[in-house]
């Protein structure tokens, strides 16, 4: 299937617009699952059309988000997370990368928690990766409605803790040469995070221990 060429570079979209696209992709995915039991009651033609629309919505939102980071953004994000730089433009690039990684690590958990790139860009000044991790894991930047403080269930919190940990060790690890290799590395970070789940979850609110896990596991990624 060919997609039409977009009339503007995707990275030039205003941050809130990308958040809206992210919401669109998640909404379409969630709606498809929610409607699944009722789908059987619909006539075949209508069911197929509805499925097709939802799939296209999800794919479009996802594809537009996918195109919005460059390898250089990942290098900048790595510096921001490690506390090496913190200008506004760097934080925006970092938020874009974290949001991209968040969406790509979705297979870690079943939840549909979203991350807001807009809010994230305002919360990225921290002196260390461990403090940033601890600050973000309970922040309303991540949620079913980002920005709206709401308690999370244990399963959702575990998903946040592991996904966030995976993207942090990815950003702290030695950089891969290409964007494609970076995506592979991100998936390995996700797999490592799940494999080390017990150790990570036992340390999530202890800065020293989480700092040590971040250091050791990013070294071994």
């Amino acid at each position: 299937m060919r997609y039409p060429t977009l009339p503007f570079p995707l990275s030039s979209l205003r941050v809130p617009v990308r958040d809206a696209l992210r919401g669109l992709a998640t909404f379409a995915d969630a709606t498809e699952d929610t409607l699944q039991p009722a789908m059987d009651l619909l006539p075949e033609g209508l069911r197929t059309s509805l499925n097709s629309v939802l799939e296209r919505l999800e794919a479009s939102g996802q594809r537009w988000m996918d195109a919005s980071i460059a390898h250089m953004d990942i290098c900048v994000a790595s510096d921001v997370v490690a506390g090496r730089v913190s200008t506004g433009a760097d934080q925006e690039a970092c938020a874009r990368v974290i949001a991209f990684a968040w969406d790509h690590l979705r297979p870690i958990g079943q939840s549909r928690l979203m991350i807001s790139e807009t809010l994230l860009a305002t919360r990225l000044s921290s002196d260390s990766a461990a403090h940033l991790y601890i600050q973000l894991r309970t922040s309303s930047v991540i949620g079913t409605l980002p920005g709206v403080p709401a308690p999370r269930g244990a399963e959702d919190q575990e998903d946040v803790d592991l996904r966030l940990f995976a993207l942090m060790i990815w950003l702290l690890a030695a950089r891969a040469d290409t964007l494609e290799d970076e995506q592979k590395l991100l998936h390995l970070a996700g797999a490592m995070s799940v494999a080390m789940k017990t150790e990570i979850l036992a340390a999530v609110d202890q800065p020293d221990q989480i700092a040590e896990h971040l250091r050791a596991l990013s070294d071994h990624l």
Partner: protein
Amino acid sequence: MSAPGPTVAEQPLRKAVQRMRWFVQAFEQQVNQTSAETGIAYDIDFALLADVFADWLKAFSAQKPQDDSDKPAYVGFAAGLMLRTLIKKNPVIITSLPEGADTSNPAYFWPEGYLYVAFCLNVRGLVLTTDYDGQQHISAALKDSRTWWSFKENVAEDPGLAIAFLDLFAGDEPEWSMPDLFRSGRMVELADKFYARKRLKPVD
């Protein structure tokens, strides 16, 4: 058994193998090579492979020796730990065997075990050669079907014995009693067998 060879640039191999990206790439390469050599088709479960690496890393770090003189011997032990973990987690499945495969050949008798042994021996040999000027002298036991019967049966009951069997295949003296425990000072016993040069390079 051909060796995998990707490394993270400008890093001693013994350090590179402690990185998940190297491990996964090298394992994939081993699967491709073994498949080409034997005609066996394998399928890798990457989530389980990640689990293998994480478990191995924990076991590896738990007994890592502080004394530099122990480090070359620890390469062999670490490779044994890897074999133990691969056998326990079994991250590959066989999707097809060549028609009429001779099951007295270890590669067809136990294809998963053969792949894991090939991988661990190759990594072990590569690290010894590259970082320690050492040599690995593969034993004739590697081709002996009776040894493979014993290997498969014994590790099914006690996966720790994989460490001793890998020593046996690598031409080293196996520790059949408590093979999961690394013994400090073992290098002195093995130096004559392992190394082309008597004097070891400094290690970090």
